[in-house]
C-alpha cells in the first residue's frame, strides 16, 4: 500500500515524517525549492506496513478569479457581485506544488491530509484533494483521510496517523462561502474606491495606489477611528464627591462614587452635617479570605494581547514566533480559541518536561510534589473551537532559545505552570461607615499565599500599605475631616494594539488566526499608523488613523445607511453567524452567499450614489489636518 500524506507547510511535513519514521526517512526535492518529499515506511493499523511519501503545500493553493472580460476597467465594479468565479492555482510556486501532488497521487493508493485542524485547514485539505484527483481519480471526500492533531509531539502524531477521520464538507463550504463573499465585495469596493479617490490622493505613486476594501479591514479601521474621534471631540466635565478622612492615611470613599451635580452634592453634604455632625457610625467590618485566580488556559488572542502588553510585540510578530515554536515541536498549535483543556489531558506530563529548566525547573518540581498541594487542574473557560486545546508547551528546547523566541516560549511555559497552580490567597478587610444617610467604605489587603504568582511574574497582587483602624460595628467615631472634592473627567487613552485585538475578538472581527493580519493590512494600506507615545519603560505604541483612513471611515459613517454599516462590526458578525449555520447544517452555502451579497450590493449602490460624501469627508480631514 502506498500512502500520500500532505501537510500545510514543509516544516510540519518534515516533523511528522520524522516522528512516524523515527527519524529514518529519505528526502527528495520537488520542483518547488521549499517543498520536499519525505519517503519512509510506516505501519498503519488498518493497512499494515505502507510506503509513505510525506509532502506539503505552502498554505492555500488556489484563489478565486473572475473570467476574462471582468478585469479592472473592463466591467462595472458591481458586475463582480454576480459574475462567474473560478478557483485557479494562485502562483507559479503553487503550480509546481500542484504538479508535485498530481505526480505523487498517480503512484498512491491512499491520500491522507495533514493540514492544520481548523476551518481553513479543512479547505486547504479540499484544495489538495482537488489537485490529487487530477493524478488519481479514485480520491474523493469519502476515500480521503484526515489526520487530527494539535501538536507535533511524536506520540500524538503517531496516534493521529493511526486514527484518521474524514474532511468536513461543511467546514469546506463555510470557508468557500467566506472566500467568495470576500472576493466579490473586496474587488467591487476596492475598484470603485480606488477609482473614486485616485485623483484626490496626494501620492507620487498614485498609479499604484490602492484604496482597498475588506469586510474585516473596514470594521478594524472603524475601531481606530472611533477611539480617535472620541478623544478628539472629548469634552471635560466636572464631578463632585464627598471624602471622609479618619486620620492621616485612612480615607473612606463614597459608595455613590461621584455625582455630576454640584448642587445635589452640597445638599447631601449639608444633610450629612445636620444628621451626622463630626461622627460616623461603623456599619460593617468584614475580614474575608479572597482569591486572585490563576489565569485561564491560553488562547491565541490572549497570547497576542499579553505579548503586546508585556513585551510590546505586534500581534503578527507574536503569531509568527509562536508558529515557529510550534513547527519546532516546542508548543502546541498556536491558533486556538479554546480556553479549556480536555479532561483527558495529562497535565503532569508537560510539567515534568519543564523540570530541566534552570529558571523554572524548581517550580515545576514543586508542583509535581503532591505533599505541597500546589497542583490543580486548570480552570475551564467558556470558549471551545472544538479543534485545538489551549496553547501549552509540549517539549523543552534542546538548544537554548534566544531573543523573542525565548521570551514567548518562557511566557507560554509560565502561563501553563500558572494554570496548573493554585490561586493566590489574601485576606481582605473592609469597613463600611455611615455619615448622615450616606455610606462610605475603605478596605485593605494582606496577601497570604502567592501560589501561582510565584511563577506568573507578569501579574502583580500586593498587600496594601495602609493599616485599617481597629473599630467595631455600631461604634460612633469622630473623624478629622469630611469634604467635597471636585474632579474632572478625562478623555480615553489612545487605542493600543492590545485593546484593538480585544475589541476585534469580542466583536467577532476576524479569527484568532487572522486578527493580526487585518491589523497589519490596514497599516500597510496606509489607513492607520503606529505612533510611539511616552518615553522609556512607560512608552508604548498607539494606533491612529491617517487622513485617508479617517476620511474613509468618517465618509462611510455619513452615507446614511439605515440598517447596515461597513465600518461597524455588525455585518461581519452576521456573516460569522451565517458561517456557523453552514457548519451546523441549518443553512446551505448558496443561501448564505445570496443573503450576504444582497446586503453588500445594496450598500454598494448607496455608496456609489452618495460618493461625494466620501470624497468630502476625506477633503475635510485633509483640510483640518493642514489647519492644525
Amino acid at each position, binding site marked *: 500500500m502506498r500512502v500520500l500524506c500532505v501537510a500545510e507547510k514543509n516544516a510540519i511535513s518534515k516533523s511528522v515524517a520524522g516522528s512516524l519514521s523515527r527519524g529514518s526517512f529519505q528526502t527528495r526535492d520537488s520542483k518547488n525549492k521549499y517543498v520536499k518529499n519525505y519517503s519512509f515506511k510506516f505501519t498503519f493499523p488498518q493497512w499494515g506496513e505502507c510506503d509513505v511519501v510525506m509532502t506539503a503545500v505552502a498554505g492555500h493553493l488556489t484563489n478565486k478569479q473572475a473570467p476574462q472580460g471582468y478585469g479592472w476597467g473592463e466591467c462595472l465594479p458591481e458586475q463582480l457581485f454576480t459574475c462567474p468565479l473560478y478557483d485557479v492555482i494562485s502562483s507559479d510556486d503553487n503550480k509546481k506544488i500542484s504538479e508535485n501532488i498530481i505526480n505523487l497521487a498517480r503512484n498512491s493508493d491512499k491520500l491522507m491530509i495533514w493540514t492544520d485542524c481548523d476551518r481553513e485547514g479543512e479547505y486547504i485539505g479540499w484544495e489538495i484533494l482537488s489537485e490529487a484527483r487530477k493524478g488519481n481519480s479514485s480520491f474523493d471526500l469519502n476515500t480521503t483521510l484526515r489526520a487530527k492533531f494539535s501538536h507535533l509531539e511524536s506520540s500524538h502524531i503517531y496516534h493521529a496517523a493511526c486514527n484518521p477521520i474524514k474532511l468536513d464538507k461543511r467546514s469546506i463550504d463555510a470557508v468557500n462561502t467566506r472566500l467568495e463573499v470576500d472576493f466579490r465585495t473586496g474587488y467591487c469596493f476596492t475598484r470603485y474606491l480606488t477609482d473614486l479617490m485616485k485623483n484626490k490622493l496626494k501620492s507620487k505613486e498614485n498609479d499604484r495606489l490602492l484604496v482597498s476594501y475588506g469586510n474585516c479591514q473596514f470594521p478594524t479601521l472603524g475601531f481606530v477611528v472611533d477611539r480617535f474621534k472620541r478623544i478628539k471631540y472629548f*469634552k471635560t466635565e466636572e464631578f463632585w464627591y464627598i471624602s471622609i478622612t479618619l486620620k492621616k492615611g485612612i480615607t473612606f470613599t463614597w459608595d455613590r462614587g461621584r455625582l455630576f451635580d454640584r448642587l*445635589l452634592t452640597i445638599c447631601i453634604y449639608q444633610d450629612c452635617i445636620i444628621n451626622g455632625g463630626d461622627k460616623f457610625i461603623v456599619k460593617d467590618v468584614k475580614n474575608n479570605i479572597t482569591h486572585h485566580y490563576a489565569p485561564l488556559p491560553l488562547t491565541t488572542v490572549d497570547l497576542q494581547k499579553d505579548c503586546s502588553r508585556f513585551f510590546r510585540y505586534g500581534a503578527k510578530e507574536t503569531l509568527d514566533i509562536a508558529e515557529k515554536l510550534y513547527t519546532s515541536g516546542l508548543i502546541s498549535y498556536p491558533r486556538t480559541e479554546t480556553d479549556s483543556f480536555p479532561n483527558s489531558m495529562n497535565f503532569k506530563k508537560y510539567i515534568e518536561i519543564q523540570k530541566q529548566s534552570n529558571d523554572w525547573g524548581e517550580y515545576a518540581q514543586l508542583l509535581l510534589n503532591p505533599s505541597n498541594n500546589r497542583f490543580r487542574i486548570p480552570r475551564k473557560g467558556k470558549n471551545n473551537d472544538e479543534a485545538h486545546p489551549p496553547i501549552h508547551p509540549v517539549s523543552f528546547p534542546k538548544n537554548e532559545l534566544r531573543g523573542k523566541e525565548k521570551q514567548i516560549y518562557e511566557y507560554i511555559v509560565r502561563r501553563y505552570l500558572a494554570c496548573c497552580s493554585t490561586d493566590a490567597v489574601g485576606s481582605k478587610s473592609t469597613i463600611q461607615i455611615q455619615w448622615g444617610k450616606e455610606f462610605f467604605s475603605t478596605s485593605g489587603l494582606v496577601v497570604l499565599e502567592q501560589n501561582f504568582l510565584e511563577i506568573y511574574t507578569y501579574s502583580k497582587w500586593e498587600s496594601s500599605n495602609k493599616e485599617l483602624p481597629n473599630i467595631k460595628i455600631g461604634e460612633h467615631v469622630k473623624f478629622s475631616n469630611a469634604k467635597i472634592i471636585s474632579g474632572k473627567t478625562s478623555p480615553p487613552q489612545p487605542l493600543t494594539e492590545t485593546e484593538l485585538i480585544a475589541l476585534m475578538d469580542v466583536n467577532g472581527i476576524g479569527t484568532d488566526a487572522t486578527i493580526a493580519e487585518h491589523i497589519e493590512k490596514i497599516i500597510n494600506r496606509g489607513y492607520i499608523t503606529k505612533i510611539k507615545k511616552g518615553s522609556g519603560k512607560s512608552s508604548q505604541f498607539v494606533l491612529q488613523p491617517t487622513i485617508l483612513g479617517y476620511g474613509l471611515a468618517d465618509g462611510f459613517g455619513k452615507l446614511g445607511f439605515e440598517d447596515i454599516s461597513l465600518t461597524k462590526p455588525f455585518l461581519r458578525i452576521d456573516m460569522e453567524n451565517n458561517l456557523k449555520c453552514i457548519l451546523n447544517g441549518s443553512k446551505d452555502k448558496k443561501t448564505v452567499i445570496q443573503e450576504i451579497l444582497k446586503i453588500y450590493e445594496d450598500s454598494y449602490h448607496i455608496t456609489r450614489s452618495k460618493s461625494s460624501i466620501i470624497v468630502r469627508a476625506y477633503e475635510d480631514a485633509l483640510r483640518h489636518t493642514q489647519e492644525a
Partner: protein
Amino acid sequence: MSSVLVQDIYKDRTQLIFHPIQETFKGALIPYTHCLAETENLTTLNDNTLFQIVDVRDTTVSTMSLIDTITDMINANEGFQDHYKGNRATRHRPIITSVDINDDHNEPPETENVHINNNVIYRLILQDCFGNLCYAYEEEPLQFLRGSNTKGIFRIELGSKLLVHGGTKVSINTLHLKNENITFLGGRIIKLNYHLYKRKLKELKDEIGYEI
C-alpha cells in the same frame, strides 16, 4: 378619554379635564414659589402641589456617557464601537432608526437595558401649572422610577404627573423627595415624548458643546 394626566398642566391650565376621582387634584394647582424666593437652606413645601415631570436625569452619569448611550440606541451606526461592552457580541445588534412616538405607540425602545443600582440618584425637572420649573432630587430611591414598568434612560414617560405633598423638604430651593411625600399619578404629554431621544441627544450635545 382625555384627562389632566395626559394634558399639559401649564399650557392647558384653563382647560384641564378632571375625572371625578381626580377632583382632589384641583386644589394642588398652585405655584411652586420657592424657585422665585430668596435661597433658603432648609424649609418645607407649604401645600400639596401638582407638577408634571419634564426631565429625568441620572446624576451619577456624565453628559458624554449619556450621549454615547442615546446615540447607540438611536442608531448604532453613529455610535462608538471602540469600547468593550462586556459580552462577546454574537448577534446582530438591533439598530433603532426611528423613535417616533405616536400617541398609543409611544413605548421607549426595547433595547434600553439600563441597570440601576442603589447609588444612583435621579434629578427631576418639575413644572407646576404656572410654568415654574424646579429641580427635585431623590432623598431615597423612589419607587415610581424603579418599578417593573419603568425602563430606559427616562424611566417614565415625560409629562407624567406628580403630586408633591405639603411638608416635603426644600433645600436651596430644590425639592427632596421621599416615597411617603409624593403620589405618582402617571400620564404623559405626547409632545414631550415625540422624537424624545433625538431631541434629547441634541440638547445634551448643545449642553456641553459636543461637535459630532
